[in-house]
């Protein structure tokens, strides 16, 4: 495998491994399908140009998230876009769900959209990207204990949002 082919294979592997999750992450931070796709494309474009700087493949996920967060901040440093179409993106797959699950998931999505960014972002990094608290701490530049508090509160708020809307299933019975 020559160098260029190897470089391309490496890039394609990054696309396969993280493309979908990066889109989901982008979608949840900007709430807009077109912007999310744009952010992911910009992220990978920058990654392609700087691929040789990525020495440790284990660091790829954090590296890509860092690029995406920076791109998001750069693009919207003056004006944060409004959430517009998370609901429209998820409609298609929701038909496969049981009615109770659909209601619960809808409330969860509404809850996620309502979360303050300081709670939403660590939750996304953990649930979408699979980052540990230590990794989130490093990515966000806050202490691990602060991350744990934010994650705990994020889940508390989601559960409270579901209870407020009359959903009292056992998923949050002990909290």
């Amino acid at each position, binding site marked *: 495998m020559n160098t260029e082919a190897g470089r391309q294979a490496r890039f394609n592997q990054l696309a396969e491994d993280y493309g979908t999750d990066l889109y989901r992450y982008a979608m949840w931070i900007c709430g807009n399908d*077109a*912007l999310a796709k744009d952010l992911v*494309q910009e992220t990978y*474009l920058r990654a392609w140009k700087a691929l040789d700087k990525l020495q440790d493949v284990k660091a790829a996920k954090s590296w890509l998230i860092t690029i995406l967060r920076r791109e998001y901040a750069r693009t919207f440093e003056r004006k944060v876009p409004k959430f517009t179409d998370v609901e429209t993106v998820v409609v298609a797959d929701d038909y496969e769900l049981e009615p109770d699950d659909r209601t619960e998931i809808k409330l969860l*999505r509404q809850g996620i959209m309502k979360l303050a960014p300081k709670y939403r972002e660590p939750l996304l990094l953990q*649930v979408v990207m699979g980052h540990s608290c230590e990794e989130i701490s490093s990515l966000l530049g806050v202490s691990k204990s602060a991350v744990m508090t934010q994650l705990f509160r994020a889940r508390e708020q989601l559960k409270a949002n579901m209870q407020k809307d009359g959903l009292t299933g056992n998923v949050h019975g002990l909290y």
Partner: protein
Amino acid sequence: MSMDFTEFLRKLGAEPRSKDPEFLRARQSGPEFEQASQVAEDFERQLERAIGLPAPEDLLSHIKDITRENATAPMLRWRPMAIAAGLLIAVGAAGITWNMNRGWESVDQYLAEHYHHDGDILLEKSSQEPVDNVETMFARFDMEVRPELARIVSVIKYCPTPDGKGVHMVLNTEEGPVTLIYMPETPVNDRGTLEFDSMSALLVGLEKGSAALIGSNTQSLSNLYAFVHDSIIPAVNAG
């Protein structure tokens, strides 16, 4: 010392899938721990389903396309297709001042190739239903679109322009569906016109950037000039 229940719940709420040995031991240290773990696991499964939005089917192929054309610009993959099909017949666009730096030799060529690439496809996607993300899409350029124009946009997407990213829209006008391409960094010869295939284009110099209205030869684009010129403006809070 083993983890007490309160501490366990805090850990469970923050990191329910933790592999911490002490936490894993605590999960099995009594019925209340086990029940709490089960409840948390149920919640996590629902949370994952809620967060796991479906990605566009063509996402990965678009990402992989970046490596083609040496990725000097993300959308340069259009170029070979466009060149192969390109039938540029520019008329009356003399004086367009633009210095090629992204692979197109002029705004004329760019517009013709761009329209040839997906102009008809987007027109086919257009409906009478307005889209609701025009403001958001233009925010990245520190631009605003007046409601009068925003409410007749039926399709909108980001697109390449000679000088970076821009916006490709379809407007539902009294003249019928008309394509509008916004080029935030590209100067044009204001009110210049060009023709390619059976299409006409009218260039609009804006306060920031420019736009091209593209329609069929039977549509009167000049009727839309002032409307577009006055509707795409710098955002009030732009620095």
